């Protein structure tokens, strides 16, 4: 029974570590599927974190917090979308500028919230189910955003591969010129995808300040946006693989701590390198296999669309 307890504990901790990555990653996945690479993930998560904290703190409702986190991320995605879609600005440079903007803006608006405890997103508690040993707390005792993250993955998976709209979105990412010729509104699709990405990144940030650690401090995203970015590639743009990636990443970090606590010496720097090296390895493997590559990699990733006339 003690073994079960520790496994349950580990899984619970891993879920918390993985959820913000999964939320931000699923949004970025959709944006990239539509052909837009948004390197501003870290900035959008930061404004999401402060937005979520502020929303909850000012209204006393964590639901408002979730909504305002998503909205904050979405809001920051607007100038990015306008620049890279309508003005065909370079996505890499604009994304980096967006990171600066987001980190600066979040710090400025968050100044008055520093040093104050926030509201914590309540865990759902389903009487009867939550008390089932081992599985109960893991499956039925999570907070709303954890469920939202899985719902989003399922929904996006269905949307991308089972609906016409999803097909259109992928077409835009694979070849915006052909999509345009087929009458697909490339701009509109990309706008929607980027805004969705911003909203998800905002939720990911909101998870940090509402559930992970209910507080706000500057730079509390601490590089998670960049990890989420890596995970999207690690997942080779497939939603369910993103879940695997996010949870694997969370597990490595948590198990690293457990090993330390048990007295095993690990060089943290090399453990921290693992996700990046793994991403490179995955990238090499999927890129070698041209069939897989062609099936999943958005060919127009990072390229601006300007309709020919």
């Amino acid at each position: 029974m003690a073994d079960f307890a520790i496994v349950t504990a580990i899984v619970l901790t891993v879920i918390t570590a993985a959820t913000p990555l999964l939320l931000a990653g699923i949004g970025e996945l959709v944006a990239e599927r539509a052909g837009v690479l948004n390197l501003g993930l870290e900035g959008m998560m930061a404004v999401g974190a402060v937005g979520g904290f502020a929303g909850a703190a000012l209204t006393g409702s964590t639901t408002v917090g979730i909504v305002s986190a998503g909205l904050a991320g979405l809001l920051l995605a607007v100038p990015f979308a306008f620049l890279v879609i309508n003005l065909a600005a370079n996505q890499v440079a604009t994304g980096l500028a967006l990171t600066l903007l987001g980190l600066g803006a979040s710090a400025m608006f968050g100044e008055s919230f520093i040093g104050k405890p926030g509201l914590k997103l309540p865990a759902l508690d389903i009487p009867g189910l939550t008390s089932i040993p081992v599985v109960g707390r893991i499956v039925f005792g999570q907070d709303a955003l954890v469920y939202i993250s899985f719902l989003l993955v399922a929904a996006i998976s269905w949307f991308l591969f089972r609906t016409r709209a999803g097909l259109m979105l992928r077409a835009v990412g694979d070849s915006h010129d052909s999509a345009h010729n087929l009458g697909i509104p490339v701009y509109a699709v990309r706008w929607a995808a980027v805004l969705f990405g911003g909203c998800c990144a905002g939720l990911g940030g909101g998870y940090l300040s509402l559930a992970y650690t209910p507080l706000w401090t500057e730079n509390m995203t601490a590089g998670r946006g960049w990890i989420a970015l890596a995970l999207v590639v690690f997942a080779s743009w497939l939603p369910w693989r993103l879940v695997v990636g996010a949870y694997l990443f969370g597990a490595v970090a948590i198990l690293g701590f457990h090993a330390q606590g048990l007295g095993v010496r690990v060089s943290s720097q090399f453990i921290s390198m693992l996700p990046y090296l793994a991403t490179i390895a995955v990238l090499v493997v999927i890129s070698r296999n041209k069939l897989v590559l062609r099936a999943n990699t958005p060919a127009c990733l990072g390229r601006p669309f300007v309709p020919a006339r």
Partner: protein
Amino acid sequence: MRLDLVPRPEPSGRMALLSPVIATVLTLAIGAALFLVLGVDPARGLYVYFVEPLTAGWSLVELVVKAAPLALIAVGLALCFRANVWNIGAEGQFTIGAVCGSAIPVLLPDWQSPAVLPLMLLLGLLGGALYGAVPAVLKNRFGASEILTSLMLTYVALLLLDWLVRGPWRDPGSYNFPESVLFSSAATMPVMGEGSRLHWGVLFAPLAALLAYLRLGTSVQGFAIKVTGAAPRAARFSGFSGGAVTLGVFVVSGALAGLAGIVEVAGTIGQLRPTISPGYGFAAIIVAFVGRLHPLGILVAALLLALTYLGGEGAQVTLGLSANVTRLFQGLLLVILLGCDTLIAYRIRFERRGRPAAGEASRG
């Protein structure tokens, strides 16, 4: 109403000049509004930010010292971007360059010879070039996206540096604090004038820019880069190998970033530390674009970005504005600059929805 971009047959010369003006006016307007909101006299705020750093000799020196690594890295990156090769791992190449070059003063602290510094620079160049070659090889050999591999390798490099200065390369006399030994004078960039911070290493930036400018215009490699970037298929027909160009630009930009790294460590810092760069490799990407991928434009753009750093610090010292305002302002300025540059290559046309070919609201 909707907004359409119409590609210009040729980049507009007028817009090339006007775009920075528009961007400046927009930034000043937004900046002034921001200062008003924060309760600072806008005129004074803008003066402290953009003019004051230009009024004193020492701050001009600092401006150059700060801009030099940005420009040096950006010149290399511009070559990549022109060839449509996306190296966003300059931060990593910078770090590896610094680490490789520092190997001599850290491992052989007692070696005092005029050969030390040139060797360090050479190692920095080589280290950066080799590290830059990795994403190029992965791209050529396996087709792996260089955007992502170069970014991932940046994190690997930063962690490697962290491990070195906290572990094997730590100064035994530093009470376990994470830093290497201070470099001896033989391993330090000489300065122009006693007590000045202006070291000779800053000259690498204009030198690289000049070389890039000349080579890009006249050499076969320069032509290959431009053709590969503009029309990859045409390049293949004319016998240029895309793979060779990718490798070439990655190696060159990696080498320049590595050089910037070792110059920064041997010039301004004087030892290896866990943090040796306040994000130079990423800022340089923005510099490259704000400088419109032109070697000489990059020099201007690097000075401009350096100015916002200095101005931001000045604003903290004299106006008591928080550092966040600076970051926000910087982000805004860059976003505006990037947006306005669209006007050079495209005409903007406003169309009423549903009515084809409505009147043009903007003439370029």
